[in-house]
């Protein structure tokens, strides 16, 4: 089934915010909004679920901390407990202060890098990815709201013109 989408163009983020609220109030499902920069409060107006990336980051940090502790405990205490400059390598806790810088850095390293990778995976971003841009102007000075059409083309068009759209296009849905 060839599904079609209607694309409404805006040239101001305030107008866009009002339009999003109006379309939501009229109970239409907004497929996507393309913006050249982050619009504060847009996710709330669209009713998007809050991100859970901070939670993943915390868990990755815990993994990093564990890796650091297990690694240093094996190398410095279990495997070859040498006397290096009189540092007490009888147990992990006795020599712990010397390991804290490593524990800290690995926690941060894991938390940061794995979170970034999670972000790329979840937003499907990679170096040779084909850009999913409906119109080049959305990276410069235009905002586009995309709504799927279910045989209500006329009604949607009227609604969107009423919200201050500067241009309205109808196109085949680009599948990604």
């Amino acid at each position, binding site marked *: 089934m060839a599904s079609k989408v209607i694309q409404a163009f805006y040239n101001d983020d305030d107008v866009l915010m009002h339009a999003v609220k109006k379309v939501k109030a009229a109970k239409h499902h907004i497929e996507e909004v393309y913006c050249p920069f982050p619009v504060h409060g847009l996710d709330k107006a669209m009713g998007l679920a809050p991100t859970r990336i*901070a939670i993943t980051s*915390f868990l990755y940090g815990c993994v990093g901390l564990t890796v650091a502790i297990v690694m240093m405990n094996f190398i410095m205490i279990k495997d070859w407990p040498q006397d290096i400059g009189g540092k007490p390598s009888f147990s992990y806790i006795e020599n712990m*202060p*010397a390991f804290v810088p490593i524990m800290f850095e690995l926690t941060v390293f894991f938390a940061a890098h794995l979170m970034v990778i999670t972000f790329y995976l979840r937003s499907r971003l990679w170096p040779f990815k084909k850009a999913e841009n409906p119109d080049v102007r959305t990276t410069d000075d235009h905002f586009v709201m995309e709504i799927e059409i279910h045989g209500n083309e006329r009604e949607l068009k009227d609604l969107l013109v009423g919200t201050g759209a500067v241009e309205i296009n109808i196109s085949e849905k680009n599948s990604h």
Partner: protein
Amino acid sequence: MYTFSNRLKIGSIILMAVGLLGIIGGFVMAPGTVEEAKAMVASHDDGHGGGHDTAASHDAEMEHGAAAEHGGGHDVSYDEHLLSQLKNRPWAALYVAAFFFMMIALGVLAFYAIQRAAQAGWSPLLFRVMEGITAYLVPGGIIVFVILVLSVLHMNHLFVWMDPEVVAHDELLQGKSGYLNPTFFLIRAAIFLGGWIAYREYSRKLSLKQDESTDNSSFKLNFRISAAFLVFYLISESIMSWDWIMSVEPHWFSTLFGWYIFASMFVSGITVIAMVTIYLKSKGLLPDVNDSHIHDLAKFMFGISIFWTYLWFSQFMLIWYSNIPEEVTYYVTRIQDYKLPFFGMVAMNFLFPVLLLMNSDYKRINWFVVLTGIVILAGHYMDIFNAIMPSTVGDQWFIGIPEIGAILFFAGLFIFWVFRALTTVPLQPKRNPFIEESRHFHY
């Protein structure tokens, strides 16, 4: 206008009365003679510490620089040392609590000056709350100063370097006497307290004048003196920490000590701002303060708790790692005799706030912030306790009647003075250039 609720007023007066009894009790219970001291230790001996091993007592003797001279016999000098520790206990308890509450007001003052100098847009709604808390700096600072004067007058033995007999037998202290001498010490203390109180009073005056004026000249002047105060504060706070805290252990020194004490007072101050704000908000007295303001304060509590831990650990780890005997005794005595308070404090000041205040939603839950705040405040009391006690009472420490009495007394005085200051003016500034922004602050 806020009216001091009767329940709170009576509560604070009861705290002061009970605390005063505890303080007096502490002084009455302190032993007067060597025999009494020995009897006390004998009856307490199984309580804590296990044994007063020779290492600890020898260490402490070196501290007082009297080991060689009292040569008559190890036992005699040990007993005298014990007596002086036990006599110090009520004084040290009083000093720790007095300093702790003074430091809260001073931390709030630094935070307030930073908010003014940074022209923060979120905080002007809280300026009256902060000014109310810093009002305690006047009585609190004067009490600390009086205790310092009493030390100089040899009423107590908190600062060994004030004892001319000790200095006469101690070359290290003689070398430092150009800086550590009683007159200069009191002059410095007077200058610091005078500067802090002068800024507090003048800034408060300008802040109130701004409400009534038709232009922003008072606001601008306040901005300038706040920036100037921060320069003065940075220097005076650092020197204050050497004088009032580090010098109880005059053989020891550390370079980042000033910052470390600063972090402690800063986080305690912010915590108290959050708690007083939440209290007043719960009474419906700060209608424009919203969850985002609390969220910001909780973020500061979280961030500065980590900053404190960073400094605590940096100081500890550098000394532990290099293990130079002249520096490391500081931590040796603490880990030997103060294991639980020393490491328990790190849990209270670091683990607890980090885990409880990490979640963004929790920072908006008022009772959660108050709960964490109580732990942070108790933790930073322990921080000052750990800084003062090992050098003054040694292994004879205990958190008993003198300590709790002093905390209750100063807590009562603090509550009484702060909330009385809050009643004098309306709780929200009227015409601050940033007040609208602060009112609509949303995170």
